[in-house]
């Protein structure tokens, strides 16, 4: 006896794009951990989700460029498909309340444009290196920026990969930690979204490899605190790292107003 899938595919009537943050201790959630937590929060919040067809229907959610496990983020994005039209701000508030503190929904817009994934062209990362003297970091950054190509190795799902990180690195600068009680370099980098992806830890590997003193305190331990601050389109003519990465939801917001 064969059984029919319980329901037919229902096309979403509305798509929402969400910006969310992964903060504090919850930065140790892997992307899969986040997915489970998010889908359960949607159910607790009673968001009317559209589902895929088949024996095991899945809620319509598209995730983009998740930050690595252990990395905090202020700029993660995803898109959900709804079976009923909803007020985006109402959805933002309800889902944010349903999520544990540390997973926070920052912004929700109605999807009005089609090339969202293409707009996630680059990210600005803040890398806090406790114990590392800012001058030491500056020297390494200068060497890295001067280099034409810096190859690093990383163990990936498909085994050890060797790739250049320099081409993906758009800007890099070093600042001392604001309180300045003990040495701590704060590195801000803008990385272009490429394949294979170049991540902040690859930049640190590269910096250590070009640094004059790779064993200086702070390069290895304690582990750096990494935060994705922005993710979005590369802004035309952006000269500083603040101006270089734009808001990927801006196009939808503009389309909404016209």
């Amino acid at each position, binding site marked *: 006896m064969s059984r029919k899938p*319980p329901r037919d595919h229902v096309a979403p009537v509305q798509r929402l794009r969400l910006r969310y943050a992964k903060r504090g*201790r919850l930065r*140790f959630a892997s992307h899969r951990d986040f997915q489970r937590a998010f889908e359960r929060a949607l*159910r607790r919040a009673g968001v009317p989700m559209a*589902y895929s067809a088949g024996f095991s*229907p899945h809620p319509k959610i598209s995730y983009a460029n998740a930050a690595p496990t252990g990395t905090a983020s202020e700029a993660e994005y995803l898109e959900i498909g709804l079976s009923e039209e909803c007020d985006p701000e109402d959805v933002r508030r309800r889902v944010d309340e349903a999520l*544990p503190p*540390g997973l926070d929904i920052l912004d929700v817009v109605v999807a009005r444009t089609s090339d969202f994934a293409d707009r996630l062209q680059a990210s600005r990362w803040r890398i806090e290196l406790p114990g590392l003297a800012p001058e030491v970091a500056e020297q390494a950054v200068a060497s890295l920026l001067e280099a034409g190509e810096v190859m690093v190795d990383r163990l990936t799902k498909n085994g050890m990969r060797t790739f250049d990180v320099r081409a993906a690195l758009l800007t890099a600068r070093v600042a001392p930690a604001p309180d300045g009680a003990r040495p701590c370099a704060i590195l801000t980098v803008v990385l272009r979204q490429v394949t294979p992806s170049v991540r902040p830890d690859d930049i640190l590997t590269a910096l250590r490899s070009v640094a004059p003193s790779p064993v200086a305190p702070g390069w290895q331990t304690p582990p750096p605190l990494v935060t994705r601050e922005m993710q979005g389109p590369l802004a035309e003519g952006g000269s500083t790292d603040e101006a270089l990465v734009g808001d990927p939801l801006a196009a939808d917001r503009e389309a909404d107003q016209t």
Partner: protein
Amino acid sequence: MPTPHADSVFPALEALLPLVQKPIQYVGGEVNAVAADWDEAEVRWALMYPDAYEVGAPNQGVQILYEVLNGQPGVLCERTYAVWPDLEALMREHGVPQFTVDDHRPVGAFDLLGLSFSTELGYTNMLTALDLAGIPLIATDRDESHPVVVAGGHAAFNPEPIADFIDAAVLGDGEEAVLALTEIVRAWKRDGRPDGRAGLLESIARSGVAYVPSMYDVEYLPDGRIRRVVPAHAGIPWRVAKHTLMDLDEWPYPKAPLVPLAETVHERMSVEIFRGCTRGCRFCQAGMITRPVRERSKTGIAEMVANGLAKTGYEEVGLLSLSSADHSEIAETTTYLADCYEGSQTSLSLPSTRVDAFNIDLANELSRNGRRSGLTFAPEGGSERMRKVINKQVTEEDLIRTVATAYGAGWRQVKLYFMCGLPTETDEDVLQIARLAAEVIRVGREVSGRRDIRCTVSIGGFVPKPHTPFQWAAQLDHETTDARLAKLRDAIRTNREYGKSIGFRYHDGKPGIIEGLLSRGDRRVGRVILQAWRDGARFDGWSEHFDFDRWAAAASTALADEPVDLDWFTTREREHAEVLPWDHLDSGLDREWLWEDWQDALDEVGVEDCRWTPCFDCGVCDQMGTSIQIGPTDLGLPEIRVGQPA
């Protein structure tokens, strides 16, 4: 009174987390976790499930007690789990103590540390946690500043092997027992801790709420058997009894189940539909020590399911008990729930082990929406004779009829659970499993008209447990167990017609021998545990961490001066007159009834279920002042609101 050494250790831990596997398991932050105020609390509990977070976090016992305790005024409860060896090494290197996942407090700062032992294989993880917490491993080395270490769970029905390491053991249902212990500790603290730690332990022992091993002396006979177990001084009860929670509807816990961020072994919500079992399977410790049967009403179940789903967002609900199809209102309940969630993404599951067609009806009802993949049955014994010995009252005809119904209803896969090494078992009894599985496939192909149906045989070694009729039985040595399993595997594989449709999964005999040592051991086994732990034993329930040779060597060393050894504790049959290490711990079962049931087993005589036949005097209800609580009730069910969980 603020306790400075109770500050969160998270800043120190945080620096280690990027260096370990699955760091999310150590950070807490579960939905529905409770944030209680440390300084406001008078009595502070740390509860531990002594296995990895992924196994421990879903544990219902811990979740229930966590919520019950946090619901009390002036009481705080946080949770802690076993850390994997990678983090353990880093914690030792950096001086980070065993911590709770709620507020990352050091476990050593709590008043009580409660450990829930579902299995004896968690004992070494307890030692790791105590050691990391800075709590002396040996209970008598502790002082007033250390938590009272309390063991609970099924393994606590014979806590003698861990008697040196624990301060107390709670037998039976924990809900009321933890509240009673809380009040004893609260009063002791309010009164200025009279007579220090010894005074507190004596109060606990006198109250009868928990068993305090240090208040009892064990005397031995020259041949190594126990002569007697006596209270160390006046006022300490000779026997300590189990706790039995009545009226499950009054205790709808957990009301807000925890939803972990980390992936766990059970990605679903559980609702306990009844406690206890009187089927009388002679190998089953759970069925013996949790009597009588106490049902939650269909109304109570419906409310817990609806409330739990709303609070967790889970997509699956498991209706738990020792034999869920036996609930007196199960048909009504499953139909109701299937109606409630029809067309939604919510699925329901019933651990299906009972071998009869009624069980298939229930499974069909619960899979109205979804795919019919697999069903599980537990005939336990391969031959008709064996099933009489263990009192699993299922005939081969029953089994074949049941699986035929299952395959006929569209189920593709049937899993069958068996045990190897049961009392009186021969090779022939076990080889019957191969014949049975082939017959299952033959009939399955016939009724379904398909060749892609499958049957998986899953088999493990039997471990005799305390407080069961088999507590006197000889455990089968691991060499014979493994040889028997190899013969069975060959018999299945060489079946040319059906062998390819039969899967075979087995557990080798060695871990069972160590489990046997820890299950039926006495206080002398504590030295073996300590030695094995010092030699590196951790996570003994995980095959990749378990090392039989380490345990065997530890047993040789630790028992060198004793007239007993590993075999003496495991493969030796006990006689009627022998004092068993747990005889002074009262599960309610009458010792003479257990012995008669053991003799009936050897005579292949069955015992009916007392829910449907007259009482057979196992002793529990008389001894404990309890009675069977089953329906059907005349209570109604909440109205179903279309398109939404009830």
